[in-house]
């Protein structure tokens, strides 16, 4: 077991984990942050996307010990002081979610996408960039619209 500490959604946290504990398990089981989901076991669905040191990663594919000392943002940390993040607003406004299971990962991937590619995103870019996020409900149509609108408001 190793002791680790990190900053999650702006708060200092610590815990003891096994060497094999995944970041997503640490977030969900140790910290009770169940907004980050697990949808697969081959690193493809993107339900688990969080930001580590400002970059989007799949938290099912990172070891918790490897994130020792890191700054982590999960979906629970997107809204600030009770105000929704523009991307969250846009998903609601454009009906970018149905069952909501892929949504946390979609949101975190989308925010990262805007950081990398800017606020003016065309449809083709968004669709291409969503390669690592699977949604079974929405057919992506409204997710694409939501990301486009959310990006402009960020």
């Amino acid at each position, binding site marked *: 077991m190793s002791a680790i500490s990190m900053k999650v959604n702006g708060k200092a946290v610590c815990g003891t984990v*096994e060497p*094999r504990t995944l970041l997503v398990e640490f977030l*969900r089981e140790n910290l009770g*942050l*169940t*907004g*980050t*989901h*697990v*949808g*697969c*076991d*081959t690193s*493809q*669905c993107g*339900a688990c996307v969080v930001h580590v040191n400002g970059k989007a990663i799949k938290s099912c594919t990172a070891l918790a010990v490897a994130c020792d000392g890191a700054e982590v943002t*999960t*979906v*629970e940390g*997107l*809204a600030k002081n009770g105000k*929704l993040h523009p991307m*969250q607003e846009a*998903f*609601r*406004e454009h*009906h970018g*979610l*149905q*069952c*909501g*299971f*892929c*949504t*946390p990962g979609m*949101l975190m991937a989308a925010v990262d996408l805007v950081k990398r590619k800017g606020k003016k995103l065309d*449809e083709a870019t*968004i*669709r*291409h960039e*969503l*390669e690592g*996020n*699977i*949604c*079974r*409900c*929405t*057919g*992506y*149509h*409204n*997710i*694409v*619209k939501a990301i486009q609108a959310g990006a402009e408001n960020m």
Partner: protein
Amino acid sequence: MSDTGIGARVKRKEDHRFITGKGQYTDDINLKDQTYAYFVRSPYAHATIKSIKIPKWKPEDGVVGVFTGDHVAEDKIGGLICGWMIHSKDGSPMKAGPHPILAQGKVRYVGDHVAVVVAESKEQAKAAAARINVSYGELPHVVDAAKAAKSAAQIHDVAPNNTVFEWSLGDKTATDAAFSRAHHVTKLDIVNNRLIPNAMEPRAAIGSWDAGNDHYTLYTTSQNPHVARLVISAFHGLAPEHKLRVIAPDVGGGFGSKIFIYAEEVVCVWASKRIGGRPIKWTAERTESFLADAHGRDHVTHAELAMDAQGRILGLKCHTIAGMGAYLSTFASCVPTYLYATLLSGQYAIPAIYAEVDAVYTNTAPVDAYRGAGRPEATYVVERIVETAAREMKIDPAEFRRRNFVKSFPHQTPVIMTYDAGDYDASLEKALEIADYRGFAQRKAAAAKKGKLRGIGFANYIEACGIAPSAAVGSLGAGVGLWESAEVRVNPVGTVEILTGSHSHGQGHETTFAQLVSDRLGVDINTVSIVHGDTDKVQFGMGTYGSRSGAVGMTAIAKALDKVEAKAKKVAAHVMEAAEGDIEFKNGTFSVKGTDKKMAFGEVALAAYVAHKFPTSEIEPGLKESAFHDPTNFTFPAGCHICEVEIDRDTGVTEIVNWTAVDDFGTVINPMIVEGQVHGGITQGVGQALTEGCVYDPDSGQLITGSYMDYCMPRASDVPSFKLDFTETKCPSNPLGMKGCGEAGAIAAPAAVMNAVTDALGVRDLPMPASPHTVWKALHATKMAAE
């Protein structure tokens, strides 16, 4: 229309918790003292279990218990059931083999549940499961439905030739006679590829037994928790219903796969007592979802269509082999029968239809309802063969369809259904216009200049939803009634709670049901909450599938709202000292006709609860009403989808460049939500047509497509933005006029895509999924044949 009433694009009330990470899915719940389950699964397609050797555990292994089929037998826990009896042509009942919750003596597919390990942690449970040594004796197996009847494998003793039933529908003599008069007959062999549902939330369960009260609780990823409770009580015999609470909290998509009662959830709740009442949690790994969720489709069909010289359809006959997997899942038997062959008339006036369906066991995961359930298979047969017939007879495919449409209603088909309302011309014409059908030849020529092959395809689907009148389904073999229940609780302050037997797992009921209440009672939508998914709160319900929550579930709510209004009028009459007949209710206000006396809805609610101003010997205090609604007919959503594709000659990649959908769902409560359902449905159908396909290796019986590495889910880049529109004919069999929209896209899309792809390639047929490899092979085959 108010801005929160029927027809308004109200933003979803449930979204806030999902976008902030505060949803409560089953795996997000942890109970005190919880243990974890891991299942030992069969690595063989078909084998006897010779022995199960369990090691001596050390404390550090963390094992709390290991249970096998012997323990299940000891406790006399019943097997999984199939709740719909189908009789063969010869009158014999279907051959349902036993399906124990943990295997007894034999395994029948890769992934079959053999034993369960319960341990202190997930990791310990998994590690211990790997150390359990099961010795198997391999038996011959078969995974291909078309080969099952003649295979050396004998999967269930009760089912010779692995045949579950040989069923038929329609008039054979009349159909043969129609064919003998035919000017032209089109024949087509069609495979409806097997699919794996893949809701993004894997199945999960937490079972617990309360020793103090001898009471069980089960949290589970279910589309119909009351049915789960009923089955676990009545058939598994675990506990009577009042001693079992089933909760289905937020559920991350279902698409049919979470209707069924599965072994894992029953094991968790049963085994909790075995370990003294500590809760047992199980969450499927995605690999297990692939192996052990009920799959969909798997039909092999030969169809023939007879036409007169003008291209009018005289008759349809088809023979289908339906793969059921290794066991009959909860509703498996009704899918390839009453949900399939009853829709073979499509949107067309076909005088004679005859269908035969042979259902067979194979050594694969059970097959059951998946988005559309039988209706996509029917639509695929009808729309592929109609398209092929039009091409063979050199009639424009739109014109061919127009000539054959049902034009007057009600229309009795030769296969049970009575279509009650529709306007198929209207949806076709609107779709042709939006898709710019006339300009297609030009677009095709332009594509050819870029070296691309462009094709266009239609699907004029019909489906039967709102499942269904209880007496009717009972006479066809259903073990349950298919009504829905609702309770309206008005609180003393005038806020409203709706308890419904429908279950939302993405459909947005918390919004659409509240819209109905806001519309009917004139109250603020934010004062309405929807309660569902808990057998301790909701009296009873049949759950959500078959696009039934609007037509059946909301009708039950509407009926209860009528009763609330009637009672509130009585109360208001007493309080305002007027005759009951003079009370009017509009926009949330009760008023006395011809006076300026009025009371707001909330004031009447309070008056009903304080009960000061009316004789309680005549009117009971309180304001709470319930209703059960049994539908009088199926509903018949229908529409026209047009798909346009461009195919790259060099790579075989198919790109969908245009999608038009014009659907008639009757009354639409919230167009934003309905459009979302259509988008999602189309994409699942596009997945079936272009990317998805479940493959078992015939030699080893192993599932080849057992992860997202091998099973290709449609991604954002596989689909375009869709052009959607609606036509509307009200459904006459429910007061709201609703038909249902949840499955339409998945029903229409495969045929639309494949009609477009075959049009582009100039081939008769192509197997789904039309992957780049399949398309490339077809391109080269035609090229080679031409050379």
